[in-house]
């Protein structure tokens, strides 16, 4: 039995990809517990978030006050390692562990990458966290951050509600 054997229409696929980068490109249908491997990857990510102190409100203030190189080092290294990895994956035409070809798609520029990004950047400095660290802060025992996460979900909903009225 699978959790989801719905076949998507082209319109549904496009809607799923709208304003979204981190998508599932696999065409395979698996039982839900296959997803537990992503939890393992998430655990690694969560440990790094805490051990590198990336989830610290202070680190974010340092970054935007230009008083520390630390966060620039983390993000810069991650981009370089990620870019080399993507290059290798493309060059060798690597497949996933299930034999599927790994695919990449180009994202069209739209004005959201200016207005939306500015708004998110402001929230990033205020809360001292982007979405990943929000979850890591909550996991580290800063329970009040749950309120911030609920607000972020609300913010996303408001965007969805008024999406058609915003410039893109």
């Amino acid at each position, binding site marked *: 039995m699978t959790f989801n054997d719905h076949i998507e229409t082209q319109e549904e696929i496009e809607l799923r990809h709208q304003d979204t980068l981190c998508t599932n490109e696999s065409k395979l249908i698996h039982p839900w517990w296959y997803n537990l491997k992503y*939890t393992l990857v998430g655990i690694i990510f969560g440990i790094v978030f*805490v051990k590198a102190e990336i989830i610290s409100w202070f680190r974010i203030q340092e970054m935007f006050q230009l008083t520390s190189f630390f966060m620039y080092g983390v993000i810069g290294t991650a981009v370089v390692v990620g870019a080399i990895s993507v290059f290798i994956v493309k060059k060798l035409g690597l497949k996933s562990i299930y034999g599927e070809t790994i695919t990449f798609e180009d994202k069209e520029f739209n004005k959201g990458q200016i207005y939306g990004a500015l708004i998110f950047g402001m929230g990033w400095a205020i809360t001292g966290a982007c979405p990943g660290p929000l979850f890591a802060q909550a996991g580290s025992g800063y329970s009040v951050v749950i309120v911030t996460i609920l607000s972020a979900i609300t913010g996303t909903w408001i965007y969805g509600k008024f999406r058609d009225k915003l410039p893109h």
Partner: protein
Amino acid sequence: MLEIIKQPWHWAVSGTIIGLIVPLLLILGNKKFGISSSFRHICAACFSGDIKFFKYDWKKEIWNWFFVAGIVIGAFIASTFLSNPGEAIQIAPKTIETLKSFGITDFNSLLPADLFNWGNLISFKGLIFFVFGGLLIGFGTRWAGGCTSGHSIMGLANLQKASLVATIFFMAGGFISANIFIPLIFKLIQ
């Protein structure tokens, strides 16, 4: 070994591991690295109403919730078992000076207790730092089409021009906020 792990990690080690998550997710199942969409999938699953933006097959993306759940668990493991209790975080002296002038007094843990406690929730502080801040994150990331993970790491790693623009404006928003709005907010509180 455990002693080394228990110390704060170097930026190059941390950045390398984060960078390697990109190919790991690709190889495990052709998944694109990112976090902020998890908010959208919650809207789609629970509060889609008649909003077209949330009318997609969210079950295709539940992997992202499993990934996010891992972050919560990993953060718990790291802060409970892999940290030296009572070890203060190293903060740049200039930033400490600036933040002290804003009225911050706690520099011992990752987040200042002056701000991040439940007692602040129903106050101007709480409204700005949790509620308003969270709204900006949710609204902004979705309009931008991704967050620091999706645009600044996955998108830049895939050499996307749109992601470069987004990253530049993430930083611009942060600079404006940290150097103009946050000092202003603290002035209003004091």
